[in-house]
C-alpha cells in the first residue's frame, strides 16, 4: 500500500512540478488575498497583527481548495480515472498518495503565505517549533479531508462549485484549531497551543480512517 501511495504521490508531484500551478497561480493568489485583507481592515496594523493567524489560515483554506480541485481534475480528464482504477493499485494506497501530494503542495503554499504574513502584517513568530508542528498537523487534517471530498466530487458535473460548499464546513474546525494554535505561536495568546494541535491530529486521523474505507467504493462507481 505504501509503495502505491508513493507512486501516486510522485506522479502527482511530477505533474505539479511540470505545470507549477501551485507556485505560479495558487500562491500568488493567496498572497493577493493578504493584500486584500489589508484593504478590508483599512491597513490597521494592530488589527492585522491580531488577526494574522486567522488570515493566514483563510488564505491557505481558499488557496488549498484550488489545489484540491486541481489534484482531482487531473484524474477526471481523458479517462484517467479508469486508468487509475485498472492500474491494480490499492484504493487505500491511491488515497494515501493523494493525501501526501496534497500535503506537500499545501506546505509549499503555507511557507509562501507565512512569509507574506510576516512581511505584510509584521507578525513575529515567537514559538517556531509550535508553529511548525501546528502547520504540519493542520495540513495533514486538510490533506486528508481534501482527498476524501475530492474523491467524492470526482467525475461529478459542476464539481468546481460543489466542492467548496461540501469542503468548507468540514474544513472550518481545522481553520479554527489552526488559528488558535498559531495565536500561541505568534505570541498573541499564552495557552492552549498544544491542545489545538492535538485536536488537529484527531481530525487528520478521523478523515484518513473514513477515506481509507470510502475511497474504494468512490473510485469504483461512475
Amino acid at each position, binding site marked *: 500500500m505504501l509503495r502505491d501511495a508513493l507512486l501516486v504521490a510522485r506522479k502527482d508531484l511530477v505533474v505539479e512540478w511540470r505545470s507549477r500551478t501551485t507556485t505560479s497561480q495558487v500562491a500568488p493568489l493567496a498572497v493577493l488575498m493578504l493584500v486584500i485583507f489589508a484593504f478590508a481592515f483599512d491597513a490597521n496594523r494592530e488589527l492585522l497583527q491580531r488577526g494574522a493567524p486567522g488570515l493566514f489560515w483563510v488564505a491557505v483554506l481558499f488557496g488549498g481548495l484550488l489545489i484540491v480541485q486541481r489534484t482531482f481534475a487531473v484524474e477526471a480528464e481523458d479517462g484517467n480515472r479508469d486508468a487509475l482504477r485498472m492500474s491494480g493499485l490499492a484504493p487505500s494506497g491511491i488515497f494515501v498518495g493523494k493525501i501526501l501530494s496534497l500535503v506537500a503542495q499545501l506546505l509549499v503554499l503555507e511557507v509562501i503565505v507565512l512569509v507574506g504574513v510576516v512581511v505584510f502584517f509584521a507578525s513575529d513568530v515567537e514559538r517556531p517549533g509550535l508553529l511548525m508542528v501546528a502547520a504540519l498537523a493542520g495540513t495533514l487534517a486538510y490533506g486528508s479531508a481534501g482527498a*476524501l471530498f475530492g474523491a*467524492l466530487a470526482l467525475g*461529478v*458535473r*459542476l464539481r468546481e462549485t*460543489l466542492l467548496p*460548499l*461540501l469542503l*468548507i*464546513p*468540514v474544513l*472550518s*474546525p481545522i481553520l*479554527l*484549531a489552526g488559528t*488558535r494554535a498559531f495565536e500561541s505561536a505568534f505570541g498573541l495568546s499564552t495557552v492552549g497551543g498544544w*491542545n489545538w494541535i492535538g*485536536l488537529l491530529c*484527531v*481530525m487528520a486521523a*478521523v478523515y484518513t480512517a*473514513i477515506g481509507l474505507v*470510502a475511497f474504494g*467504493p*468512490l473510485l469504483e*462507481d*461512475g
Partner: protein
Amino acid sequence: MTATATSRTLGAVALAAVAVMVVLGLVVSPEDAVQGQGVRLMYLHVPAIWVAYGSFGLTSVSSALYLWRASRRTDGGRHYDRLAGSAAEIGVLFTAVTLFTGSLWGRVTWGSYWQWDARLTTTILLFMTYLGYLALRRLPADPGVRARRAAIMALVSFINVPIVHFSVDWWRTLHQKASLSVGRKPEITGEMYWTLMYSWFAVSLGAAWLLIHRYRVIRLEELSEEESLDRAIAERRAEASGVSK
C-alpha cells in the same frame, strides 16, 4: 397526486395539532419571569431542532442501510436513498426554522440577532453541511452513482458533527443551558413544560406529513425521469427505423 387517505388524515390531524399548539403557545402558557413574551418562541424553536436532529439521524441511518443493503434489495436500495434525501430536506427546513426563531429570540433577549456561541456556530455549520448534501443530491448523474455518493457524504457529515461541536465548544460557550436533557431535572415546569412537550408532538406530526409527501414527490420525479428517458429512446428508435425504410 401524492396524497392517500392515510396521509390526508395525518395532514388534517397535524394541521389541527399545530392550531392547538398556536393557542397553547400564544395564549394559554404564561410569559416567563425573565424572558417575558420572548419565551413563546421556544415552543417552535426547541421542537424544530429536535425534529431536525431526528431527521438528520434518519438520513444517517438510511444512508448506512443503503450502503450496507442496497445490492441485496430488489429496488437497488432506492427506498433508503429516497428516505435519506427527504429526511435531509426536512432536517434542513427545520434547522432553518430553528435559526430563524433563535435569531428573533436573540434580538429580544440578547439585543442581537447572532452570538458566536458554541451551539449557534455548530448549528449554522450543520445547516451548511446538509445544504451541501442536498446540492450533491441535485447534481445530474447516474441515480446509482449519485445515491452512493450521497450516502457516503451523509455518513461523513454525521461523523463530522461531533468534531465541529467539540472544537466550537472549546472555542466558546455562552448559550442557555439545554432546556431539557436526559437524566437531568427539567428547568422549566408546569404549563410551559407541557406546552413544550405538546409542541414537540405537533411539530413532529407536521414533519412526518411533510416527509411522506417529499418521499412520494422524489419517487414521482424518478419515475418521470425514467419515463422521459424511455420515451426519448423510443422516439430515436422510431426515427431510425423511419430512415431505414
